[in-house]
């Protein structure tokens, strides 16, 4: 493998891994804190991508679309927790699985009714449409680099929020011992709503920023959802650090798998999960005992 090709694959791995992290971190936090298995989490990624498509064609600017989209996603997550997910906390996992599965059907059909079932592309902003030359013949699109940098910034902000702020302290406390946080008099309803809105916004942001690099298509959320489950299983439920490590690991394995074993690349990620399960059934980083 030439150095430029190798470098491109490394960049692709990091980009994919970071996008997965943004979706999986919300999934793992929502499970860790509220104890809800949310199958509809992939739908937020899908809705984000379609929001980027709709808003960028309305406003003519992707960055405006993303800024608007994030605000919409936070509001949407806040309301959705209030009208739907807050009723799920007392239900068992089996019922949560089916209720959130029903929600996927509703979201997909609303998407179909409003935007249709066509595959769409989102154009890359002119300021980022150039390519970076690598070696004599290869090049790497600047926009893909921008995705990685933007994800890295958001991931850093997320870690700062979790480690350095009072809100983050409450979230971490909630992830390790929900009952204790409740009995300390912290407004748990508000905390749940904030965490849920944060998770929705992270997934939607990932969908929005990835939209120009991939296409926007029906069912795109489901694929991401299942890989994110693998991320959460490998990383350990409730652990954001674990999600980061696992997401990057999967990013590299999937990307390099597509190069070396194209017929089996879809399977490699699951084999990795099988190996980890044999070695550490509770994931690499387990912060709480749920």
């Amino acid at each position, binding site marked *: 493998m030439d150095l430029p090709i190798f470098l491109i694959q490394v960049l692709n791995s990091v980009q994919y891994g970071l996008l997965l992290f943004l979706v999986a971190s919300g999934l793992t936090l929502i499970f860790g804190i509220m104890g809800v298995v949310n199958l509809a989490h992939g739908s937020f990624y899908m809705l984000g991508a379609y929001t980027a498509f709709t808003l960028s064609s309305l406003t003519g600017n992707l960055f405006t679309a993303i800024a608007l989209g994030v605000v919409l996603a936070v509001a949407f997550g806040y309301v959705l927790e209030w009208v739907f997910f807050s009723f799920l906390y007392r239900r068992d996992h089996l019922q949560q699985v089916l*209720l959130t599965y029903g929600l996927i059907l509703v979201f997909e*059909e609303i998407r179909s009714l409003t935007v249709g079932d066509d595959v769409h592309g989102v154009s890359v902003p002119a300021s980022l449409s150039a390519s970076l030359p690598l070696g004599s013949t290869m090049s790497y699109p600047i926009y893909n680099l921008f995705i990685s940098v933007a994800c890295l910034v958001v991931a850093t902000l997320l870690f700062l929020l979790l480690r350095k702020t009072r809100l983050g302290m409450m979230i971490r406390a909630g992830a390790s011992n929900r009952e204790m946080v409740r009995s300390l008099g912290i407004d748990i309803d508000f905390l749940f709503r904030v965490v849920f809105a944060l998770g929705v916004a992270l997934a939607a942001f990932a969908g929005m920023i990835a939209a120009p690099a991939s296409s926007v298509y029906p069912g795109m959320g489901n694929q991401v959802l299942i890989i994110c489950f693998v991320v959460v299983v490998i990383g350990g439920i409730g652990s954001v650090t674990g999600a980061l490590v696992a997401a990057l690991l999967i990013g590299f394995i999937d990307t390099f798998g597509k190069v070396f074993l194209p017929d089996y690349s879809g399977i490699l990620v699951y084999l990795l999960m099988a190996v980890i399960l044999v070695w550490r059934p509770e994931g690499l980083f387990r912060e709480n005992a*749920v």
Partner: protein
Amino acid sequence: MRRVLLAIALLALAILPLVAGKFYVDLFAKIMIMAVFAMSLDLLVGVTGLVSLGHAAFFGLASYMVVLAAPDKYAAVSLWTSLPIAIAASALLAFVIGALALRTRGVYFIMVTLAFSQMVYFVFHDTKIAGGSDGAYIYVKPQANVGAWSPFDLGNGTHFYYAMLALLVLTFALLRLLLASRFGHALRGIRSNEQRMRALGFNTYAYKLAAFTVAGAIAGAAGYFAAVQFGVVNPEMASWHQSANVLLMVILGGVGNLLGAVVGAFALVLAQDFFSSLTKHWLLPMGAFVIIAVMLLPGGLIGAWQALRGGRSGHG
């Protein structure tokens, strides 16, 4: 009362092909296949307390075995060799997946079973096995001949219907026997308190793995006949939507009650049929139906019926 209703339902199913058209005979044959599939999952979800979101993997693998067991695509395979092969393949897959997935519990188990079934989906989707993502047609249905004698013809809709009715009754009886045995009681014990069962000296991992394998084998039988009826196999048969669907049937009918799984299969397939006849965008009412049904009927249809009659709650 319950026995009378059961006898009436069975009688109605037995005379259905005499009074209904081909559309309904095919639809009800499909429902009975799904009912067998749902009963196999109920052994895990309702009896043992293992929520698997990957049960379509075993259904899908066995359906592919109809194609893979044939030496070439125009040759007829014998039912009596290909069905055991398909069931054995599903049982083996269930044993391997179960051995790994059962190292986890609770929500991990849900995610891990989902992920492994997705792996099976990708094996059929990404590789060239039986047509890749397009799937493959079954040109010749399996033959039920024994020597020169042909007891029934799976290509005939009515014959197929009665074969599926026999499969449904047989599976129900088999699972009832299993649940009445020491094995069945141990599984119920694991559901209510696994710690206690372990303290009593039961190797709960082995019991759960055995249940997982049996459930996979029965799901395989359902998948085999689904492929025979549809005349086509594709990766969607192992997809996670299929897994979620069968889980819905189990909970819609009422968990832990084999009859519930059968009732759930009838209710869900008929609901899908009804909504898809109304509108192209039928997933919207279907999704709403799922949400409302799970919210309002935590004990499923059987539980609701028992509550209406003022009887005891329906777990048993």
